[in-house]
């Protein structure tokens, strides 16, 4: 009796499910994206048109805008959550009192869904200014910082940066937990050795701790990156399906359900998958190599 057979049998239901419902449907989606089925309801199969949809979509203004929005959102969200998460972990690492209490508080937002976060922040980021202001703008008014009032997510240029704020709020606690584990994983002996060699406390971080955090940073980057590129629920909860905060995922929704154009929706979905793959595939390769080495 072969030793690997029971194991294989045990995982086979999950392999079959994933093969059909993840990779099978992924393939089906790519196939649909390469047809001219631009009508959802009519029962036409759609002819193969190659990459026509993939190139054609770039001439649409809305697509360019949504890609730009996704990039701004990703940069601000990933950067913000990494920096804030790292900073919180850095503070915690010093072994403050009631550390577990703080850790729990920072982690709490993780338990909230993006929809709930979005509903609350929609109110906080109300764009009215001056005497009609509510939410954060009102707060600025109370403390005499009226010049800080702005349009938030309705700002045509930097609106998506405002959209990233709730996402940062939600995810930075999780990133903190990742970094904290990373910090704790650095052996005290190494730090001691650095100190003995005359390294300043900052130098210890700069030359010893930070390089050892690289794997953690990479994981955090991938987790945040893939959340960011397919963001949908947060955007819909904050602003609905408005062009001003359009991202590829909301564009996909309107393409499929409002304009009834499955081929276009599938094209956008393909681009989202590809952009996430850009993050994930190198990581998998790197991970596999590392596994082999050790």
């Amino acid at each position, binding site marked *: 009796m072969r030793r690997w057979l029971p194991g294989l049998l045990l995982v086979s239901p999950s392999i079959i499910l994933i093969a059909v419902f993840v990779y099978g449907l992924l393939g089906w989606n790519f196939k649909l994206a390469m047809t001219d089925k631009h009508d959802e309801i009519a029962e036409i199969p759609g002819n193969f048109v190659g990459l026509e949809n993939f190139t054609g979509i770039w001439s649409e203004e*809305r697509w360019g805008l949504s890609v730009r929005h996704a990039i701004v959102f990703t940069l601000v969200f990933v950067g913000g959550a990494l920096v804030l998460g790292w900073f919180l972990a850095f503070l915690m690492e010093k072994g403050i009192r009631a550390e577990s209490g703080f850790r729990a508080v920072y982690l709490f937002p993780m338990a909230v869904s993006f929809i709930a976060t979005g509903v609350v922040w929609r109110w906080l980021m109300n764009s009215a200014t001056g005497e009609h202001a509510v939410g954060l703008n009102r707060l600025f008014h109370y403390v005499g910082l009226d010049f800080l009032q702005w349009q938030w997510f309705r700002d045509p240029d930097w609106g998506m940066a405002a959209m990233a704020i709730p996402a940062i709020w939600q995810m930075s606690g999780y990133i903190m937990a990742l970094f904290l584990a990373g910090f704790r994983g650095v052996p005290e002996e190494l730090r001691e050795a650095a100190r003995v060699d005359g390294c300043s406390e900052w130098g210890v971080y700069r030359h010893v701790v930070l390089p050892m955090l690289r794997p953690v940073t990479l994981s955090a980057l991938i987790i945040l990156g893939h959340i960011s590129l397919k963001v949908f629920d947060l955007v819909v909860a904050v602003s609905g399906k408005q062009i001003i905060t359009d991202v590829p995922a909301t564009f996909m929704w309107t393409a499929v359900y409002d304009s009834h154009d499955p081929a276009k929706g599938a094209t956008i979905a393909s681009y989202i998958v590809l952009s996430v793959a850009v993050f994930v595939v190198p990581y998998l390769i790197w991970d596999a190599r590392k596994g082999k080495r050790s």
Partner: protein
Amino acid sequence: MRRRWMAAVAVSVAGLLTLSACGGGDKQEGGGGQAAKKVEVFSWWTGPGEADGLKAMREIFAKQNPNFEFFDAAVAGGSGDQARALLSSKLQANQPPDTFQGHAGAELQGYIKSGKLESLNFLYDELKLKEVFPQQLIDQISVQGQVYSVPVNIHRSNVLWFNPSVLKDAGIDGAPKTIEEFITDLDKVKKAGKIPLSIGSQWTLVHLLESVLLGSLGTDAYNALWTANADWSNANVTKALENFKTILSYAGSPQDDWQPAAKQVADGEAAFNIMGDWAYGYFHNPPEGGLGKESHKDFDWAASPGTDGTFMWLSDSFTLPKGAPNRDGAIAWLKVAASKEGQDAFNPLKGSIPARKDADQSLYKDYLSWDLEQWANDKLAGSIQHGVVANDQWRQAITDAVGLFQQDNDVAKFQQALVAAAKNSGQ
């Protein structure tokens, strides 16, 4: 070893069983000769007012059809976004509900073209509905001589809501009659330090656009935009879009949706708001569902500028999908929806007027009596945002163009986008 094997087999068998269980099911429906047969009525009427109206119609249905059982398949979500997404997947799978709600007009065209709906001409003939619905309404919802839906109610889109005291403070003595007067008045309000025009999220701008187009172009030219040889590139449309730009420049900061925008008018922060007549219920109803304001005093209304004498309509209607599991039940429901009794039960609660000309006028008070009078006498034009004149694809293209215009304010580009939208609509 042996035990590990057994466990593995057991778990994988259990897994496969779960898999196959998903494929089964759905077999029991439709059976049973004795029990009342279900009629699945699919709508998005779940909010206050509309759900009450549906219930009133449902009671009439139950009384007239003891052998059918009404099954409420309502999907929550204003304007039916979620409901329509679910519906199209049901129709695609050829598992239609017995009857479903849709905006009367072009919104149904996709379904009609792909043969998902039955023509209702036989029902119109049987009930002599062509005599009780206005001729223009029948014309505007017919596709090649066939009618595919039964309108239950009529809403008006081109209504200008305003706050009389804000207008008085700004030195304006009445609702503006033309677009030019409107712009002058907006400017006066601005000088008086109030928000001239309140707006909501993106779709409320499409709603505003349809009123501005109608007011600038006039009824015939507006209606011609939706015919086969429509010309969206002419100078009159340019002028209308310039008006739209000027009017938007007086708008306050966009609110989350139409209610907060209407509330700015009720609270005296803003002077004007252009919104459909569902806003009346919000202004007027007691505080649980509305603002409890008094009409003609706290708020007032008029035809939106330049559109007096034209009724821009939209309508909720019911259809008969091909292959409805309970066709007779669906027809029985359509008969209730088309009847005077059904429409008079539904509409006062929903805050709309019946599509029939012979409604009991005493049931419709205040705004609704004005509405009913206009409906009887006005020329008709169809709404864009609410699915009358443009099919879904076209409407979405217009919505996108408005959203992009909101960012760059480029009229020439806006007009090009609208020309392209008309060309690519496939309508």
